[in-house]
């Protein structure tokens, strides 16, 4: 009886937080599909509510055959946030690798805005304009006026090179749609 009381009064309200908010995007907005790529060794889905915002979070962890890893995170309620974190066993990522990874990642985004220029070209231009050097970290917002979508879209990339502590090169691509 006591355990039921605890469940109803403490655990249930937390578990239903995002649903209570009356989200534009319900939990079912992202379905936990199997990632399809012949280079994938294993995948794992996780879901929870974000501590800061109470938004739905669905996360897909991927291990590729070559031991590179990727985490694809969908965070959503009033707006949709997509984040792709790729960690490689290579020494570094070059511009072409980064552009390819972002184009690959974008396929997983649940919302697919159109671009005026190819995404690949947008990335390469942005990296060139920032004087990308694989040895240095980089964080850039990508141009919003290249997007054809009737809502706010914020997207960008972050790159961290390998360091002496043994941290592997990491690329993050993010896309936020909606909000203010």
């Amino acid at each position, binding site marked *: 009886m006591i355990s039921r009381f605890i469940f109803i009064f403490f655990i249930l309200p937390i578990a239903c937080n995002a649903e209570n908010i009356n989200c534009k995007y319900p939990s079912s907005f992202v379905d936990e599909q199997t990632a399809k790529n012949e280079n994938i060794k294993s995948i794992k889905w996780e879901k929870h509510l974000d501590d800061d915002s109470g938004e739905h979070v669905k996360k897909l962890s991927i291990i590729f055959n070559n031991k590179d890893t990727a985490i694809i995170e969908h965070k959503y309620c009033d707006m949709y946030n997509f984040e792709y974190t790729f960690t490689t066993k290579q020494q570094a990522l070059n511009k072409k690798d980064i552009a390819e990874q972002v184009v690959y990642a974008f396929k997983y985004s649940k919302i697919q805005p159109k671009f005026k220029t190819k995404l690949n070209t947008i990335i390469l231009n942005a990296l060139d304009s920032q004087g990308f050097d694989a040895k240095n970290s980089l964080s850039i917002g990508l141009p919003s006026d290249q997007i054809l979508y009737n809502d706010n879209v914020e997207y960008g990339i972050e790159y961290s090179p390998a360091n002496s502590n043994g941290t592997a090169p990491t690329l993050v691509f993010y896309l936020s749609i909606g*909000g203010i």
Partner: protein
Amino acid sequence: MKGIVRSVGVNGINQRKDVRIIQTYLNSFSAWKKKIMPLKVDGIAGNKTYHAIKAFQQQAVGMKNPDGRIDPHGKTFRYLTMYISQEQQQALETAAHQNQRAARPVLISSKTVSDQTGLNGFTVSYKSGVLKSRRIVSNYAMSVIKIALKESGMKTAVITSTLRTPEEQASIMLKNAKIDLKKQYRLYGRGGDAVLKIYDKNKDKSDTEILQLMVDKINDLEKSNRRVSNHCISKNGYVKKNIIDIGLNSTKNANKKFNPKKFTKALKSLEKEGFINRLIDETGKSNQCWHIEVTPNKKILSNYNKGSILNQTTFVNGAPK
């Protein structure tokens, strides 16, 4: 003055009274454009009427692929009546309805068009709450909005928001974060969340200190081309790209004829042709506005709908020649 009730022309309903009205209006333009051949006002929609409609669409509306059809509230009808006063329209339509010749036929000439063309009768104003220091939208962007007004048959647009400095942005975010931080996290993207984190981690500090830290973060983000809000941009950045909200309700209140759908369509057309960098129709959101981003002088305005009577753009106010 009612205009036509049903469609006229190719695949149109072609009610006699409507056809007579269209024939009368088309005849008004025959003196201006020779390809628009004068028609007998008989209410019969035949090949000559179809050809005249297509010629008008090509010569005066600027349509590359004219469809030969005029809808009651469509673009071609708007163009047909654009340079004819309400009194003249009343007289022409009454005569057409009664199957009579108008006592005074209206003839549109090149002079009529050049006298009345351009964007003189259109107003883009700022809502009273917009600070004087923020009333910095370029003439170019104003002209782009006026073209959209003219296309949509409206007269006035009201700007409700322009530039927001990092200090103002941080101040708004701090105020709202104190009320409901979780909600703010849900409303902002990655950049905004990074600024909210600053508040979250420094709650024990004074408001002045938190505000400064948030401003610093916003400035840092801008260095890497990241924005917390569409409107949060430096003054220098704003000169390069004008960010404008046109309020739905303020604009509605300022117009006798208010047509948000046509206005949206006109803005979309301007975006498609590259005069507006970005359009977000937020009229259905809590913001209730059209959000547009315009790069001044990106594309010469005289190229807009070249050949149309809408915009003999050497007459566009404030536009580069």
